[in-house]
């Protein structure tokens, strides 16, 4: 497999090579317990993320990355249940695995952070580090921040900063309708959207702010009817999975012309479900997408698609692996506490060539943010379509890491 070496990646590879030479004497093996729902209703997403991790480990550790550090991903099926995830955490530490990766579901992540804090306190010397690649509850890097937790995705606050930054300049936006699933993520989307829009676009009216039970709604047409009645031209929604797909289908069927600003339109299965229904009206905020002009990892994307026939989108998995490898190299040890210390504050080049930093003060990766539009594929701006639908994402706004950075209220406990 050939790796299209771009400057940033080259830099990483170079550093890796140097370190690899010094550490070549003792090749190090790091196991990462990948605790995710791999069966059951959300198993599809979990399996897909697992592929990202395995692929990232292949490409960015060990032989292919010319590193002395080899990352091995150990999948563990939590079935999406926090309770099961806790049992697996114990199992992982029993097997001598001190790194845990998880991301689907802030509920599981929150429980894991808490359990890891307790575990590390009770078992000094056997610490566990949590590599969170997708749970974006801002609390995790604010009120609940922990020295053992590293988040490689952008927080809700960062993402909405980017989204509202784009909305600010869209003069067509007059009436915004906020719809979300009734749990902390949906509530936070609603809260930050209102706060940020009030600051950036005080003229915009919030004509609706609605929460519905997660995964319970089968027919979204009444919600669409309500949006139409409220004259909404823009919808901001944190919905994901079936809740998002159903929403957009219902909008299309009812002839609702407004635009949708979303977080998870790119997650496996969702592009298929949205299809043509969402063309030119669905936007997504993310830290990367395949058609981002600055993308440094096109070969990764195509390689992944070729191999698995699935879309590559979780760059956070790649970054998690890269940080882990670099952390081990820097600490010259696989001891989790030492690696955590090494990763805190570490800087790298990101997927878009930007300078990314694992901020030591709250464990949140500072990275660039994209707002992209779902549109017909073709031409240089939309090179790749998603899931063979003929539609893909087009960058409409890019924020540099420093633009997307958000303040933190975290009072980080002293790193041991």
């Amino acid at each position, binding site marked *: 497999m050939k790796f299209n070496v771009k400057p940033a990646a080259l830099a990483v590879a170079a550093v890796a090579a140097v370190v690899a030479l010094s550490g070549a004497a003792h090749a190090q093996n790091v196991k990462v317990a990948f605790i995710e729902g791999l069966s059951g209703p959300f198993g599809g997403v979990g399996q897909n993320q697992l592929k990202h991790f395995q692929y990232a480990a292949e490409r960015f550790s060990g032989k292919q990355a010319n590193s002395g550090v080899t990352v091995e991903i150990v999948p563990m099926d939590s079935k999406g249940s926090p309770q099961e995830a806790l049992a697996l955490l114990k199992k992982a530490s*029993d097997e001598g695995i001190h790194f845990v990766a998880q991301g689907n579901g802030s509920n599981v*992540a929150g*429980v894991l952070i808490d359990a890891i804090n307790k575990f590390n306190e009770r078992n000094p010397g056997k610490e566990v580090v949590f590599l969170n690649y997708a749970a974006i509850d801002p609390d995790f890097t604010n009120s609940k921040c922990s020295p053992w937790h590293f988040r490689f995705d952008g927080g809700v606050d960062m993402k909405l900063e980017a989204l509202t930054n784009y909305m600010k300049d869209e003069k067509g936006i007059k009436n915004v309708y906020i719809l979300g699933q009734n749990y*902390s993520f949906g509530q936070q989307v609603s809260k930050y959207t209102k706060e940020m829009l009030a600051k950036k676009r005080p003229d915009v009216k919030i004509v609706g702010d609605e929460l519905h039970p997660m995964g319970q709604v089968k027919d979204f047409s009444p919600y669409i009817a309500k949006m139409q009645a409220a004259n909404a031209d823009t919808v901001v929604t944190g919905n994901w999975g079936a809740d998002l797909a159903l929403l957009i289908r219902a909008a299309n069927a009812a002839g609702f012309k407004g635009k949708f600003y979303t977080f998870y339109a790119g997650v496996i299965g969702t592009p298929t479900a949205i299809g043509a229904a969402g063309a030119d009206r669905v936007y997504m905020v993310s830290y990367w997408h395949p058609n981002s002009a600055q993308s440094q990892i096109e070969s990764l994307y195509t390689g992944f698609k070729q191999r*698995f026939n699935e879309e590559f989108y979780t760059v956070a998995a790649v970054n998690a692996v890269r940080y882990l490898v670099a952390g081990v190299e820097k600490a010259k040890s696989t001891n989790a506490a030492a690696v955590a210390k090494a990763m805190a504050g570490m800087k790298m080049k990101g997927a878009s060539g930007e300078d990314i930093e694992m901020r030591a003060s709250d464990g949140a990766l500072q990275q660039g943010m994209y707002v992209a539009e779902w549109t017909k594929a073709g031409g240089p701006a939309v090179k790749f379509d998603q899931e063979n639908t003929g539609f893909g994402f087009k960058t409409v706004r890019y924020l540099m890491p420093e633009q997307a950075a958000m303040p933190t209220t975290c009072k980080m406990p002293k790193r041991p």
Partner: protein
Amino acid sequence: MTDSALRPLYFKPRNGVRIVVWSAFAALLLLLPLVARSSFAQTLLCATGIAAIACMSYNMLLGQAGMLSFGHAVYTGLATFVAVHAMNRVGAGWWLPMWAIPLVGGLAGLAFGVVIGYVTTRKAGTPFAMITLGVGELVFAGALMFPEFFGGESGVSANRTAGAGWLKDVGITFGPQLQVYYLIAIYLFLCSAAMYAFTLTPVGRIANAVRDNAERAEFVGYDTRWVRYLVVMASSFFAGIAGGLTAINVEVATADLLYSVRSGQYLLFTFLGGVGFFFGPLIGSVLLVFALVVLSELTKAWQLYVGIVFLIMVVYAPGGFAALLMLNLRRIKYGEWRKMRWPYAGMAFFGAIALWGFAAIVEMLYQAQDAAVTGSALSVAGIKLDSATVSSWVLAMAVLMVGAFGFEVWRRRFKRVWDDGEERIAEAIKKAEAAIV
């Protein structure tokens, strides 16, 4: 033994067997951690202990009173939430000792049983099943609507080492998993004893009568709805204790504790264990933890296996594993078991072969689905296969057919021997009856 207070309730001198069984149970609980030393093994034991209480409480409904509930997780789950809040209060200075938290859970379970049971027990039979399902969905969806109590999606966490008390002074902080295990073991023993005692009380017996024939029970003076209501309350109390123990064991309550899938698991594994006997759910709880924690790690197809095993059991052995065990004990009692050794061995041998063939096919199917990630090679019970080659498929199918054929041959032999034995036992019983009066 800890249940000396309960002993006069049902221990009659002639019931020496009972004393032996219960003592063995206590000894087993006491000694298990010596075998299971790793912390993961202890976690498994704890999970099994809690599941055992939950399944036994479930069986009070299904096995004893014939009430098929799809909402048992509501009681265990809500109790966990209450218990977790109580633990946080303890942390904030309440006088309650930590070991009493499961009782708090039990009382919470009872309270929910009083409220929810009032509605659900208005119906029996199939409507009852549907209603518990609906109420379960209601509670689950409601949990996410009240983050103030349920803590939203990340739930509510607590610390089991909080609080003071004389136990702390002697070094029992419940920090180490082993101490939690013994707390669970003590509760398990007490709860099983109490639930067993319940089966021997008038209400326990009338619950059986209502299960068998609700209409007739009305004609001998019992308000069957009230009986159902009482049983639901009793069952929810013990379910609540299981919920309280969960709070101590995992120190966090999350909404998935209330999910209908969990209720379904209680039903499924209680049934597999055997609803007809008191100890059936114990077997069920071991199977539950085995399937959910061990089997699901071994294979991606675990849900398919569980589903198929369940189907087979419902059709061919509706009494569950407990009934199979008891049938064999009966054979031993009448001295008929020895004749079945060879048929059993034959069936086991060919059964294992067929199982391998079947598992190989299933595993290859799953492997083929994810071949891109993990490659097409796999091994089933140590034998290497490749889902991309025809030979592997042919091998698996051939093995399955050989196994199935051999199994069928031996099954027929087995049936002959079994039926023979059945006749002799029937005769023996008739003789014994004739001897009475």
